[in-house]
């Protein structure tokens, strides 16, 4: 179960995702990022679910190129993917964030193919935090509304620790990639790494290894 945590404000949309890739319930690799900056527009997409569906979005997004066009067609795109049978029983979730030229503002939507009913929904993400997997409404009501990198990292560490402690074994791991979308730019960086990063790095190698080493050095030096 991939982490895609989104924070929406008027000034920026921030997305934190992990980099652990899994097949079924088994981790098999670390990837560079699960949040892709693509197309000619200022836009990024992050998917949860099968890797192949994320690839299909990436290719189609590159062809369509314009953020507003992709968002406008998202319901149709997901309905076609669902009708063709490529989405497995776990369903699919995609978050797309970018600057909407049509709306003249930042805009983020989440498209979902529900695992059980197979219904397709596309909804705008309102201002504030949107965590997947979520931490429950009781907790989220108490999370500060503003965004900081530190808060984003603390929240995802809580997701990781809850999963580990409860024995749920959600596939969360690798490094935390932070993507910030503003009306004029997209910046992507590595914030930190999950506590079991070393084990996965030794098993699979890591395309972000150099960056993760930098973080580690900084932490030692600090």
């Amino acid at each position, binding site marked *: 179960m991939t982490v895609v945590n989104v924070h929406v404000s008027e000034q920026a949309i921030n997305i934190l995702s992990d980099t652990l890739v899994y097949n079924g319930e088994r981790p098999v690799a670390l990837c560079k990022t699960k949040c892709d900056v693509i197309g000619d527009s200022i836009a990024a997409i992050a998917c949860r679910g099968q890797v192949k569906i994320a690839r299909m979005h990436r290719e189609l997004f590159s062809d369509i190129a314009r953020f507003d066009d992709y968002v406008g067609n998202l319901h149709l795109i997901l309905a076609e993917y669902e009708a063709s049978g490529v989405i497995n029983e776990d369903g699919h979730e995609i978050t797309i964030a970018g600057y909407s030229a049509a709306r003249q503002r930042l805009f983020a939507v989440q498209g979902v193919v529900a695992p059980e009913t*197979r219904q397709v929904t596309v909804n705008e993400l309102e201002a504030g935090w949107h965590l997947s997997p979520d931490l*429950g409404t009781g907790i989220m009501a108490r999370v500060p509304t503003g965004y900081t990198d530190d808060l984003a990292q603390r929240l995802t560490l809580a997701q990781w620790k*809850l999963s580990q402690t409860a024995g749920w074994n959600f596939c969360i791991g690798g490094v935390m990639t932070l993507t910030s979308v503003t009306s004029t730019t997209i910046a992507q960086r590595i914030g930190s790494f999950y506590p079991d990063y070393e084990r996965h790095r030794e098993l699979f190698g890591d395309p972000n290894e150099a960056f993760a080493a930098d973080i580690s050095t900084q932490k030692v030096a600090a």
Partner: protein
Amino acid sequence: MTTPIDAMLDAYAAEIERFETELRPLEERFWCRDSTRAERAEIRAKTDALLAAHKAALERVTSAESRAPRNARRRLRTLADNRIAGLRSKLRKRDDWEKNSFAFAETADDFVAGELADILEPTP
């Protein structure tokens, strides 16, 4: 105009909604911290009956009666079979799961609240 495929998908979604609506209060009670062993045994029996009825209903929805093309019916039937198998497996594992204190929502909330104690705002 509603096609047979649309009608079949609508009926499929409606059946899942019906099942979930009936299941939800039972599950909520099951996972309440103060539920008793006897209550949970009774809920298990009711859930088993609900699941059997759900399976039969999904089979009806995806049968030839729907007049949807065979391929569409076959695909939806596979999803329905996987769904029933998944639900059965989840219910079978529930006895083990029940021993995990994190199965109870309150425990997870308490845990996360402890982890984030220094940043969470007071309860509204």
